[in-house]
């Protein structure tokens, strides 16, 4: 049975009007009727508090507050309406260091540009069907950065070392 996307509230943030229209067109065709838009991080913060969206789709590179700054603010600011809101990051960045940087800011999913319809659907499904547990440490709050359950992890304890250093 398909999702009832008409119940979904999505906030789309991109300083490029064309990319915003592209993403909004895809979402509306999926059936999402409650789409709010913002063209920068500051406006997004206002829209976020006004509409309290279920899912956010952010561009990374924007003038002023970047998508990455915005995610960190959502996860940690006391005024945030929902620190758990899933964030899908649209990005032209594909280097592993940049992906790690976004993951460490609290991003749930990525879409590498160019945006495709199938990828957008997959990422939406992922945040709906397979949400990750959340983690709170001294230096991080956000979705668990390990894809599988944290209890399954058998590798070196890098997080412990990082936190000790901090």
């Amino acid at each position: 049975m398909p999702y009832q996307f008409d119940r979904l509230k999505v906030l789309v943030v991109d300083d490029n009007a064309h990319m915003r229209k592209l993403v909004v067109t895809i979402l509306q065709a999926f059936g999402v009727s409650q789409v709010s838009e913002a063209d920068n991080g500051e406006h997004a913060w206002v829209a976020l508090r006004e509409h309290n969206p279920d899912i956010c789709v952010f561009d990374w590179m924007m003038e002023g507050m970047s998508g990455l700054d915005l995610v960190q603010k959502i996860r940690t600011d006391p005024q945030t309406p929902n620190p758990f809101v899933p964030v899908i990051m649209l990005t032209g960045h594909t280097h592993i260091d940049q992906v790690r940087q976004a993951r460490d800011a609290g991003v749930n999913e990525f879409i590498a540009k160019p945006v495709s319809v199938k990828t957008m659907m997959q990422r939406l499904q992922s945040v709906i069907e397979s949400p990750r547990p959340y983690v709170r440490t001294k230096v991080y709050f956000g979705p668990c950065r390990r894809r599988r359950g944290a209890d399954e992890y058998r590798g070196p304890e890098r997080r412990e070392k990082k936190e000790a250093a901090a």
Partner: protein
Amino acid sequence: MARQQPIELFMPPNMLKAKLGGGTGTAGPDMAAIKRAEAALEQLHEEFAQWAASDVENLMAARARFGKTPDSGSRAALLRAAHDMKGQAATFDYPMIARVAGSLSKLIGELPEKRDLPLALVDAHVSAIHVIYRDKVMDESNKTAMVLAAELENQVAALLKS
């Protein structure tokens, strides 16, 4: 191995799933929604030429601004213009523009701020993008464009190594 670091791990209730109901489970994506979205993008396609033109104009304006006032703000604006093109030119049917813009993004984004941008190399990228757009080169296998893009990528790689 026991995990002793002070972390709090918790799973919030899946309100999203409860709100949206249904779901496809293991049956795969909602193909009807995907087809609707692809059809909607096809309708939007008529606007892509205009959007590509606007992106080229933005890039040239950002380059002109950087020429007049070469500071960190205008450098960042030039990077954003190139980065936008890298991300969306392929959607607008200009894959070779996306490739050249990707090379320009790499140059601006990875060259340390303390080093001056080599304007000749920046301009070579901007000119290449302008020519690819002007000549409506939409074919990813266009030999001239491929040679040009490869040469620009090589020059950027060499500069970043130096």
